């Protein structure tokens, strides 16, 4: 298995542990990750607000780069995945938009033909590798971990682009948790917004959201959470001390990036997965190798 690897801005910035743990996991699973050093930011749904055509064109360029490499794109950010799927849909539905995008790439040797597939690690783990295979590879069952899955908006909505079987009531991450020997925890809020997109505009509201969800997970028995989106991770982990104050509850719930959770179960060391980079750290007894 081989992919054009699109880590996204955050996994190359504030969440470098996500990129590092993805690379460690890919090695374990025999997935080859080919870098895309010339790919731009996906726009995170923000460039669209300024100029939708520009946003689609930047993504078309990224798709064209992957097509030139002859590889499908692997995302590890829920938001990048959602934004790219939406761009693909719009470019597919409007030949005019596609033409416009390709015209502005003229001379660069790039052209988007609508061929490349855009996949998130979550979808690859479920569809290409499969829970059974992962189960057979488990070296360190996540026995003591009661894990609240936090899906993130872009992984769920719009539902038709999510790639999930029942995006209004998904169980994909929960099934993964089970396959890895952990216990999934259901809680209200697992499908809601983390608040990150407006943490700089409306901090109190953004952190109330995060605080509510973390405390709901905890009240339902979770001793940690997992998310396939590093933007959610930013709001759930580094801001957690503030969120706790705002909702007036003790939280202290460590948050896995998806590949960290899978990697840990497959026997990759916490050090290699860079678990110590998190603001809220795991108790050592929960993650040490056995």
């Amino acid at each position: 298995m081989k992919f054009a690897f699109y880590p996204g801005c955050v996994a190359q910035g504030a969440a470098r542990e996500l990129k590092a743990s993805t690379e460690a996991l890919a090695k374990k699973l025999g997935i080859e990750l080919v870098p895309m050093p010339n790919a731009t930011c996906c726009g995170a749904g923000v460039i669209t607000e300024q100029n939708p055509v520009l946003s689609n064109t930047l993504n078309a360029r990224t798709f064209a780069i992957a097509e030139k490499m002859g590889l499908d794109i692997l995302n590890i950010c829920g938001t990048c995945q959602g934004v790219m799927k939406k761009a693909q849909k719009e470019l597919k539905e409007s030949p005019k938009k596609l033409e416009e995008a390709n015209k502005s790439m003229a001379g660069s040797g790039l052209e988007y033909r609508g061929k490349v597939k855009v996949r998130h690690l979550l979808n690859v783990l479920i569809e290409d590798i499969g829970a059974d295979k992962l189960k057979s590879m488990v070296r360190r069952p996540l026995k003591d971990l009661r894990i609240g899955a936090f899906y993130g908006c872009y992984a769920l909505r719009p539902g038709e682009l999510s790639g999930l079987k029942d995006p209004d009531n998904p169980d994909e991450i929960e099934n993964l948790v089970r396959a890895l020997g952990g216990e999934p925890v259901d809680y209200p809020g697992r499908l809601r917004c983390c608040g990150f997109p407006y943490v700089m505009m409306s901090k109190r509201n953004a952190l109330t959201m995060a605080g509510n969800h973390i405390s709901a997970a905890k009240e339902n028995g979770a001793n940690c959470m997992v998310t396939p989106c590093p933007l959610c991770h930013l709001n759930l982990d580094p801001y957690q001390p503030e969120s706790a104050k705002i909702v007036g509850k003790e939280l202290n719930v460590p948050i896995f990036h998806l590949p960290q959770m899978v990697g840990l179960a497959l026997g990759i060391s916490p050090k290699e997965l860079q678990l110590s980079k998190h603001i809220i750290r795991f108790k050592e007894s929960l993650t040490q190798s056995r």
Partner: protein
Amino acid sequence: MFFLFPGSCLGMQDHEAPPRSIKKMKTKFKIRRFDPQKDQAPRFQEYELEVPQGATLLDCVNLIKWTQDGTLSYRMSCRSAICGSCAMKVNGHARLACKTQAKDVIKNNLVVLEPLGNMTVIKDLAVDLEPFWEKVEKVMPWLVNDEEVSPGVERLQSPEDFHKIDAASTCIMCASCFSDCCSEEVDKEYLGPTALAKAQRFVCDSRDKKQFERISKLSKEKGIWDCTHCGECSQRCPTDAKPLERIVELRNVALNSGVLNNNGARHAKAFVDSIAKSGRLNENELPVKSMGFFNIKGLLEILPVGIRMLIRGKNPPLIHHSIEDMDQVKKIFREFGEPK
């Protein structure tokens, strides 16, 4: 006959299993009941119903009311997705009961019905819509144009211009979006998806004369920049109104008509600038530019999280590198005339 029963002409009849008497399974309806005048707290009541083939969810609720429990309260009228009154939470998400096939929402022989969220319950599945209507009223949901037109002449609009407000015009005020809105849940002052979708219908109406005034007002606190982009509203919307898409259009109008003196617009501008410069997001610059260089209070507030991340080695790299082939990207930006 030939066309209606193709099986018969192929002689398939013989192989078909004889019609069995199918034992119809009863579906359990778990409905949240609450009468604030009498009950201390809401409770779930269970009903069992043999769901007729082709029944909508509203048909089922009606059957329950008419044949089992006349005290159950909910709203309905048109039964054809026009009046917007029958929205309720079905298995946790808002939907129109009359536009939902029961079989699509029965999971393991069970359907859970609750009143819409973000509003208080009057009784059972009927909620108080007053705050919802108040917000819609706040956006001046009517055309403002004082120019005289001669008698017998209408204010004409081209099909292209109509197309810009077409989607928002399909809203049936069912409040499904409002019910499931994440931002509304934590802030009752937020204008909310329905009002904003309605606002788009007038801001982008070629005949309206108050565009700048409207968009300036909508850009203030609790307006267009207080949406988190969560997509719940559009996912729940039973029409083409799709509030999130309308909110994005409003932000587009705001950014391109120079209504920039707020954190939301500054954030968007800084974001675009960053990509134009280096192809990637500069996470170190973004907070400062979003909040404004002189917003000392705001910047002090985010200082602790910055320091915390620095200690863990989680701070974005101090030297921000551009992507390769940046000249291609710059060319694309130039072609679209961005950043303005």
